[in-house]
């Protein structure tokens, strides 16, 4: 089994090779969290995370030839049926798998990534979207919650051009999409509850830091003006499903 360091090296190798071929690969998922949690690895617990990338939609046609040159073969059946939005590649003679989202990040909720957002960080999707990629998961599991804690512990809130979690972006996206707002606020609450258990023997400073950042995010979201459509959807509430159903790849 690959170690996290092996996978991190491989992720960077692919991103660098992509850059040389004008292919803008940006990581999300466990390795991206790892990349942004170097200062304090308290919450980062992974044995062998997937290698996950987002690629701009217009570069989709480059993927197959690129990954073949990098020693990967496509999951032809999966890519045939889903390749406009999602592709999978397997490394030959190993169990290493690359998962690629094409265009926007779309799971329980959609995080648009077309508007130059992939230029913000040279390795991963921007921190704001990385945080939301975890906070948008309706069926948040323990690992996802730990990833959110890890990001909030290691990264300041502020402007994403300064390498911080883009508070404006988080607030903007949640204020445009009521469904995303709902899931994110539910999950921030879950993370708060988790943090307030006795499970983690966190120094008070660290606990307070994370709690204050959660509060800051919540305040920013609430303070951002909402459209009429958002407000109407808010009236309907959770009586109508507010998220997309996500399934396992192998069902």
């Amino acid at each position: 089994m690959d170690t996290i360091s092996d996978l991190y090296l491989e992720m960077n190798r692919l991103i660098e090779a992509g850059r040389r071929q004008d292919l803008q690969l940006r990581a999300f998922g466990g390795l991206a969290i790892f990349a942004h949690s170097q200062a304090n690895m308290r919450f980062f617990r992974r044995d062998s995370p997937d290698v996950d990338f987002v690629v701009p939609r217009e570069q989709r046609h480059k993927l197959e030839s690129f990954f073949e040159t990098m020693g990967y073969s496509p999951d032809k059946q999966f890519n045939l049926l889903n390749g406009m939005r999602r592709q999978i590649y397997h490394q030959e003679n190993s169990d290493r798998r690359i998962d690629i989202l094409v265009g926007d990040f779309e799971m329980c909720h959609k995080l648009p990534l077309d508007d130059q957002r992939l230029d913000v960080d040279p390795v991963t999707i921007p921190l704001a979207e990385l945080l939301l990629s975890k906070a948008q998961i309706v069926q948040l599991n323990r690992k996802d919650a730990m990833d959110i804690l890890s990001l909030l512990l290691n990264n300041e809130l502020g402007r994403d051009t300064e390498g911080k979690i883009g508070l404006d972006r988080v607030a903007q996206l949640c204020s445009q999409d009521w469904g995303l707002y709902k899931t994110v606020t539910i999950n921030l609450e879950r993370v708060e509850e988790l943090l307030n258990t006795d499970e983690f023997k966190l120094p008070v400073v660290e606990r307070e830091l994370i709690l204050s950042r959660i509060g800051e995010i919540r305040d920013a979201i609430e303070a951002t003006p909402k459209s009429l459509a958002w407000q109407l959807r808010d009236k309907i509430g959770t009586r109508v499903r507010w998220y997309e159903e996500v399934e396992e790849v192998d069902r």
Partner: protein
Amino acid sequence: MTNLFVRKATGLVRSWSVLDAFVYAFFSINLITLGLYSFSQMYYFEGGMINALIISAIFIFFEVIVYAGLIAVMPRSGGDYVWQSRILGGAVGFILAVTGWWFILWLWVPLYGDMFRHIVLVPLLGILGARDTALWFAGTQHGAFTASLITLGIVSVFIALGMKTYARIQKFSFYGGVLGLLVVIILLLTGSNAAFREGLDANATALFGAQPGVYAATAGLGVEAGAITPFAGGALLAVFLVMPYMVFFNLWPNWGATLYGEVRGATDFKRNISGMGSALLVTTLLGILLLYAIGRTIGWDFYVQSGAAWWNYAWGYTETAPALPVWPYPALFAAFLTSNKFFQFVVVALMSLWWFGWCGTVFLSSTRVIFAAAFDRLLPERVAEVNERTGTPVNALLLMVVPSILVAYLFSYNIANFASLTLCSTLVIAVTYLGTTISAIVLPYTKPELYNASPIAKYKVLGIPLITVAGLIFGGFLVFLLYQWLFDPNALYGIGLSNTNSVIYMLSMYVLAAAIYFGFKSARRREGIDIDKVHAEIPAE
């Protein structure tokens, strides 16, 4: 930590929602294209149209149970092919699936093209004042063939756009088309027969150059052609004899079966039932309402007579051309109740969305069967490749498009009496469905582990698995249909054993499928691949 979930890997949002699958099913039993087209041809039956519509829908509901069950057990792209090849064996699965989901769709192309010209091109061109072009499309073989070629172009573009974009087109067409239908029904329910006669005579003359007195002349030709089909009633046997024609329209709520590998929540049996079943229910109810509205203002007898006048000439039973030189399209008739050209155009344009939302069904489901067979190595791998730049399955499309051009040519120019083969399009698919239905009947007994682990295992009727019971009922219905089509004891359908061309055409498809199967199986064996072992495993999705 009770409020956190257990979830495995990075998830996947599949292309289609259950609503998308419903709309696909709704359009697959398309009341305006398939429905009105076949109703107009069914002018010589003694059984009531409404009775046949309702009774056939009841039988077809059991088809919905069969397919919803199989989808829940194995939600795989390729549908019938995957189920039959894994339950009944590779040879049966391949031969029945590729004939029913691939080869016979070549014949559907000129039928889609025929509906395109009658429902979209001719009425819109007529209202826009392009009388000569409208009549060229309506009444010439060149026009029919051209309509098929345009159809192929539109469908190819839709397939190239991918499932998700096609779902958007369908949804737009659904809302617009239903709005158009409601307007048509309101026009028909609020109009009068006198106003209709006046509107028909005035507009048919002005738009299409018909001679004055078109109403009476059409009625007369219809009577001569033997138009007798009643709105409702008739003996039970007479009603049953209507159904082999009726199912040309409504046998297809399961048309998305091959796509369910790309539908969210497809392992949920109840959702599948509600998607396909509600499409069947809504379409049947709309059908009853529309036919009632037609009878109220156009007049049932005239409606049947106008269809008889058109098809009696089109099928070559008379030399007398119909007085109305365009296909009798009830939505156009409804639009004739108003003299406002813009309003007429809007109504017919909205109704044309029933064709645009539906036309992709001719190939979309088929491509998944071709892909599944290619992944099983029964076709060249290249067949399942997409163009890197456009994402279009070019080779699979070519396998659909190129033979379709030939068949459309034969059909449009009625070479070898091809125009008489309309119902072959339904017969061959019904044979495929029978194979799938037998798979469903035996599934709990031949694959007990798979069945017992599925969400449908809990549904039983008197201790017998629901899927088996539903399969027996629907299978009986299919056997009745096949008997009527093939032996045709009352000479009603014209595609049976007495029609040599029909038999040769259908048999040649099964021979071609068998040749491909055994040819590839043998070639793969030489490459060290055992196709039987491939079919022994459930494919990953």
